[in-house]
């Protein structure tokens, strides 16, 4: 019990962030029209590409003789970049289609 409580207060910042972000995430897209469902999904897809930052850290910390970490980290950087760049470009292309008709 003490352990759990200790863990909670040690990591309270993170816990606050998680709880607040859950609410923000729900509030922010609460009233999206169905036409925008797919672009929004695609945009959110690009945003979770932040995982690339983890990949960069893994890669940058890997000892130069630890080939397993280097190879896996390198792969992670490529895949993460694919997620970020591809995600944003695809979303932009979808939304480009919407722009024309607004005029």
């Amino acid at each position, binding site marked *: 019990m003490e352990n759990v409580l200790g863990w909670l207060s040690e990591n309270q910042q993170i816990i606050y962030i998680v709880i607040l972000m859950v609410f923000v995430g729900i509030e922010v897209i609460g009233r999206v029209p169905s036409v925008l*469902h797919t672009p929004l999904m695609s945009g959110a897809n690009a945003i979770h590409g932040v995982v690339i930052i983890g990949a960069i*850290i893994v890669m940058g910390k890997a000892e130069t003789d630890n080939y397993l970490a280097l190879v896996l980290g390198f792969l992670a950087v490529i895949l993460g970049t*694919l997620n970020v760049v591809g995600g944003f470009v695809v979303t932009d292309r979808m939304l480009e289609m919407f722009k024309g008709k607004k005029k």
Partner: protein
Amino acid sequence: MSEHILTICYLLASVTFILGLKMLSHPTTARKGNLVAAAGMSIAIFATIFLYRDEEQARLHNYGWIFAGLLIGAIIGTLAAKKVKMTAMPEMVSLFNGMGGACAALISLVEFNHLSDEITLTGISTGHTGKVLIIVLGLIIGSVSFAGSMIAWGKLNGKVKDVSFPGLNLINIGMLLVALGAGAWLITDPAQPMLLYGILAVSLLYGVLFVMPIGGADMPVVISLLNSFTGVAAACGGFLYNNKVMLTGGILVGAAGTLLTILMCKAMNRSLQNVLIGSFGGNNSTVSGAGGQQGSYKEVTLSDAAMLMSYANKVMIVPGYGLAVAQAQHTCHELEKILHEKGVEVKYAIHPVAGRMPGHMNVLLAEADVSYEKLLEMEEANDEFKTCDVVLILGANDVVNPAAKNDPASPIYGMPILEVEQAKNVIVNKRSMKPGYAGIENALFFQPKTAMLFGDAKKVLQDLCTEVKSV
């Protein structure tokens, strides 16, 4: 100093993510929102590369590898995203989502290897509970998301067929429990690296089998769900490195993605549970009921159809997936213009879930420069069908199936539909009499005012254009 700048960059990036999502949910600001989030992401990435310091204040190294990875990923990503056809967009999203999941899983693998090395070095295997928990969670969620997204991708481009067998759901639940149990075991005793690979294998298999039985029409919902999974996997990375921007971005997408998944289900008037284990289409017993007693249908020739439309006052076009696969949006716009020149009022009735993703038809028609005022949403269209002389249905089926309104036994009962039967004439263009994605018969095709016009949408529309011109 540089550490403070990094913190501020991360804060800035987190704010752009929230703003970006907010702007993405309004049609007028959506495109800018995407760019805002992309700018924030670039700041976060470059700040990490140049300003990050680990616990011992050491800078990152291996810059060559990092930039090579970024460059390769960016080039492939841009090319793939630019080249893909509009119809294949959802597949692309699924593919990129899988990449993110795989990335999260790889991070977990590497971090666990570090931990194993540390354990063998120091001989102490306790005191890592929190870290191992996060690693295992990231691995399970990331690999489920990766495997599931790959299957979803394969299903949308037709490479993977729906597979379902009795007891599959039980097997799936069992596998999930095995993965979680093994994870719990690893947390109590982290000195067993092979167990981690076991968890990886089971999670991948679970991802495959979890998506396997779900029908292709439900893929957007599944992709959205997997999308929020990847968000949570990214957030695990945030825990691992105590990195606030990964945490905010990941949780934000996890929460927003979950809500979006539910909203998508609502647009189809189904529950998430129904999508995930109802396996539509795969279950033939509920489907055949309406099949047998249907009467005969009548066909209409091209010239008759052209005649009918040329002398109509108002024509409503109902596009569906058939239009998208045939890439017939430009030809469709062509027909609209020709009819318009003849003084016929032409409008489009857009069902929110027509096609393979919500908004599919809007995107497709906008690509062909169809003007925005001509696209009617479902409610508006339903008010106008009464005044239409001809409704031309192009490869749509389930979204105009009256069974959704009047047959409680139908699997799509309760889904809001386009009430096309209120119009004077209905012309249906389909490739064959085969039922639509939901695998159910459509009584509309057998009604006396309905006429069938078989063939590929593009071919038929081209012929219609020529015929209408010559009337």
